[in-house]
């Protein structure tokens, strides 16, 4: 059975995390990770990268644009208050 080298494994990491690999390749990845600390670290860093990005603070709409939009919402023709959705 074929074995993966590290330089091949690093290109499969995202598909592995997404659960998109076929069963055979996925097993090869797991077998490799079981024996290779370097690739374990790499996988972990790709996860940490995604998580750090998720911690970035949201942007905010400028107050003038926000006010204009709220006016537009209220002025919508035929707008009826429905279930208190604002």
């Amino acid at each position: 059975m074929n074995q993966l080298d590290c330089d091949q494994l690093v290109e499969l990491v995202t598909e592995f995390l997404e659960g998109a690999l076929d069963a055979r390749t996925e097993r090869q990845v797991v077998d490799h990770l079981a024996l290779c600390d370097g690739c374990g670290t790499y996988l972990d860093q790709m996860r940490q990268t995604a998580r750090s990005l998720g911690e970035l603070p949201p942007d905010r709409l400028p107050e003038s644009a926000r006010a204009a939009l709220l006016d537009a919402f209220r002025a919508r023709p035929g707008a009826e208050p429905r279930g208190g959705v604002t």
Partner: protein
Amino acid sequence: MLDSWSGGMLRLARSFVSTPDSAAEVVQDAWLAVLSNIDRFEGRAALKTWVYRILVNTAKRRAVQESRTVPRSSLTPEPSGPTVDPDRFQSADEPYPGHWRQMPLPWPSPEQRALDEELRSHLERALAALPDRQRIVITLRDVEGYPADEVCSMLDISAANQRVLLHRARGYVRAELEAYFASPGEPGEGAG
């Protein structure tokens, strides 16, 4: 809804247009388009997905007006080289070809490194340096947290294409973070 969605919409809009001001206008225009078309919303997609599609279309039109290159699938093939520097791996005449020459060093644990201002701006710069389509996908997936199928539907791309773009983008940002954590100035607690 306006407040909770606009932040993510702004971030996405900035991937298409050149300035924060025009991104804000894109978001504003998109909301107005949502308002005038809400009766046509069929409920087949999640409301937020539908709003984001309108946003993407609005942003693309705006980008054309700015005559900035629009991200478009047919325009350029994605770069297909490796996402990790080949020098990191042993070559054919070394004992373990294809294996790490020097393993990646573990990073400080998340508890040890709060997402401080410096790391945050480093991440923002890394995002800004990505090619458009990669930046748009990683922004939606990792920054905004959308599931893969919704991102495919918003951008009208295949699942495989979405994964390739995400992989390349994450690989780039990971390398930038690695360089950041390896740099002597880190972790910064002021200029001490």
